[in-house]
């Protein structure tokens, strides 16, 4: 194929996804989609293999490929132009039931030429807890509607009885219908643009370009792997739930042009909904792999081929039905993602050539808190605190992590404005800001996480309730790199009003710990949430003291941490005391050598 045509088709595929994402957002009325960007759109070849991975949550790229393949198997001989299929069963391909895949065949002149697939976290899925994350579920049967594949649009016509059946099982069916319509519209745009591409260049040419693109990605990734050192790197992630701790263990081995991710030794599947299925784990390890190793390589099936995953059946990373998985995306999947980010980061950091591509672990611990109840307009609202997507960047070998800097698995994640939340829920923010001392200390500091506190406001029922799947307040999860510290862990507190008075904003962090289940936010009580910082890079004693002083001035690092961790002494006005800093650092280093050698 001539290179001009190849490049044009490649870029057109990118643009088709971009346009489909815009469509999805324009039609959706859900904050988690529009404000949090908890979405994904990608294109797949006729056999269901990944053709062009899109933006959004990247751990869906491979799972949606399996969703396409599963639909192809289930509906063999019955797939027609204009069909749209729904799949959200985690044991078939999905990550959890509330992340619904709508996959649609793309035909041209009667032939199946490709698939488009997208997901959003739907407003509700009918689990025992509102919003989809269902920490009180003990099995998949209480995690809401779950389908291994069902046709919801038949040759362009909505299969209304099927859709009505789904809507009959969820809260706020009008919002779930809007979610479905946004995804149908998204797939329609993808289909029409792919058909236009085929009309212009010919279906065979487009398919040949896709095949060449996949071969190119495989060649480029294998070449990159060959340039990296052989070896093996380990990571472990602790997941705490209600006082119980599970562990995800990873050994990543790189040999020649192959990568193996081995999760042997991870905990057995949990009775809590923190487990994930094998497809979810595969997606979880690819989420950091795409941006960290393939930042200049097209994300498609060619990237998948050099990679192998070992995940023992019955483990928390490959659970067996009917284990509950509704919290998976912020639990085992995220831990797989973190562990893979850590090992890939170590491998890159081991290479003098690729060290600048290495990163400490970014925002490693989502807090899934869904507010629900009657709002100030009299309607029912369900919605996540999108601050969970705000994140914090991991430090790199040449720069600090970005404060409130997002996360690795979703390059477009973000949070809603405070005013948007307050307009839709009967709550008021006491504050939302960067969290001092949350970024992992290091030569380069991890990005700061944040903190917020909310109280009920103009709530017709005196307040609302919330579902919290809040792990990560016992163990830090954003690992440091090359001597950097981890980012500080999360915290969740219920500050109770005493004697009818308001809770002081400054006291909210001292409330009672909450982490798992359904809780009230009523009267004058407050909910406090702190989210983790990114991991640091390098020895904190090597950090430029001027940078530490600037961090203190910017309220990102405390005077105490500057002294005790960074060995930096500041004067009463925040000015750097150079001699005292040099003395303290010399003393700190000497003290290290006085410790007992094992």
């Amino acid at each position: 194929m001539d290179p001009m045509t190849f490049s044009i088709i490649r870029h057109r595929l990118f643009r088709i996804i971009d346009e489909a994402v815009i469509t999805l957002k324009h039609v959706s009325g859900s904050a988690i989609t529009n404000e949090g960007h908890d979405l994904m759109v990608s294109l797949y070849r006729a056999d269901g293999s990944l053709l062009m991975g899109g933006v959004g949550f990247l751990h869906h790229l491979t799972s949606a490929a399996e969703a396409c393949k599963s639909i192809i198997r289930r509906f063999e001989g019955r797939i027609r132009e204009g069909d749209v299929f729904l799949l959200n069963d985690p044991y078939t391909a999905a990550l959890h039931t509330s992340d619904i895949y709508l996959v649609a065949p793309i035909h041209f002149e009667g032939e199946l030429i490709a698939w488009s697939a997208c997901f959003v976290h739907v407003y509700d899925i009918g689990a025992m807890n509102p919003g989809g994350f269902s920490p009180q579920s003990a099995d998949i049967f209480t995690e809401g509607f779950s389908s291994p594949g069902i046709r919801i649009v038949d040759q362009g016509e909505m299969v209304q009885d099927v859709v009505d059946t789904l809507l009959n099982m969820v809260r706020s069916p009008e919002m779930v219908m809007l979610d479905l319509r946004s995804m149908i519209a998204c797939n329609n745009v993808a289909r029409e643009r792919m058909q236009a591409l085929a009309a212009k260049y010919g279906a065979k040419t487009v398919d040949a370009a896709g095949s060449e693109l996949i071969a190119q990605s495989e060649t480029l990734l294998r070449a990159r792997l060959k340039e990296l050192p052989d070896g093996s790197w380990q990571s472990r992630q602790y997941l705490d739930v209600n006082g119980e701790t599970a562990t995800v263990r990873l050994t990543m081995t790189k040999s020649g042009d192959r990568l193996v991710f081995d999760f042997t030794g991870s905990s057995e599947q949990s009775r809590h909904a923190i487990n994930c299925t094998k497809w979810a784990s595969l997606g979880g390890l690819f989420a950091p792999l795409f941006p960290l190793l393939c930042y200049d390589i097209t994300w498609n099936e060619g990237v998948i081929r050099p990679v192998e995953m070992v995940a023992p059946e019955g483990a928390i990373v490959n659970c067996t039905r009917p284990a509950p998985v509704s919290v998976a995306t912020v639990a085992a999947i995220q831990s797989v993602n973190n562990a893979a980010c850590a090992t890939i980061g170590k491998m890159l950091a081991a290479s003098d050539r690729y060290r600048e591509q290495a990163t400490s672990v970014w925002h490693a611990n989502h807090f899934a808190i869904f507010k629900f109840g009657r709002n100030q307009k009299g309607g029912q609202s369900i919605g996540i605190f999108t601050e969970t997507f705000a994140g914090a960047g991991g430090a790199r070998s040449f720069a600090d992590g970005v404060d409130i800097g997002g996360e690795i698995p979703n390059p477009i994640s973000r949070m809603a404005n405070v005013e948007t939340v307050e307009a839709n829920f009967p709550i008021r923010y006491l504050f939302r800001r960067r969290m001092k001392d949350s970024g992992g200390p290091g030569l380069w500091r991890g990005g700061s996480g944040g903190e917020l506190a909310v109280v009920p406001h103009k709530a017709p029922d005196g307040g609302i309730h919330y579902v919290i799947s809040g792990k990560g307040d016992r163990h830090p999860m954003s690992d440091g790199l090359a001597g950097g510290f981890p980012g500080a862990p999360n915290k969740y507190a219920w500050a109770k009003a005493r004697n009818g008075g308001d809770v002081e904003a400054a006291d909210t962090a001292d409330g009672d710990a909450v982490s798992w289940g359904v809780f009230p936010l009523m009267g004058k009580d407050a909910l406090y949430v702190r989210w983790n910082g990114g991991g640091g890079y390098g020895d904190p004693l090597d950090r430029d003291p001027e940078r530490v002083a600037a961090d203190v001035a910017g309220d990102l690092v405390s005077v105490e941490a500057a002294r005790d961790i960074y060995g930096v002494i500041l004067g009463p006005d925040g000015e750097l005391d150079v001699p005292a800093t040099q003395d303290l650092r010399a003393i700190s280093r000497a003290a290290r050598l006085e410790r007992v050698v094992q």
Partner: protein
Amino acid sequence: MSPPRSISPTLVLSAGKTACRACGHELAPVEASWKDVAVLDERPLGEGGGPMFRTDGGVLLRRFYCPSCGTTLDTETALPGEPFLVDRVDWS
């Protein structure tokens, strides 16, 4: 003379041994665990990281120092009794 082969940002390969990149101190044969001969500073996370890191999770912050120059070679978090994480670069 070619530059030393890299094992990590803080470690290099030197004559078949893992060595501190900062001072060149040879820690252990490359096939052995260098962490076993580094200076281990293991303490509760809240003590090592400050108030923001205080939890009831019992997690430890491990820092591995070069016994010659005191540079931090690596860190890891662990529950008590956990084996060290093993990272290995194969330059053979």
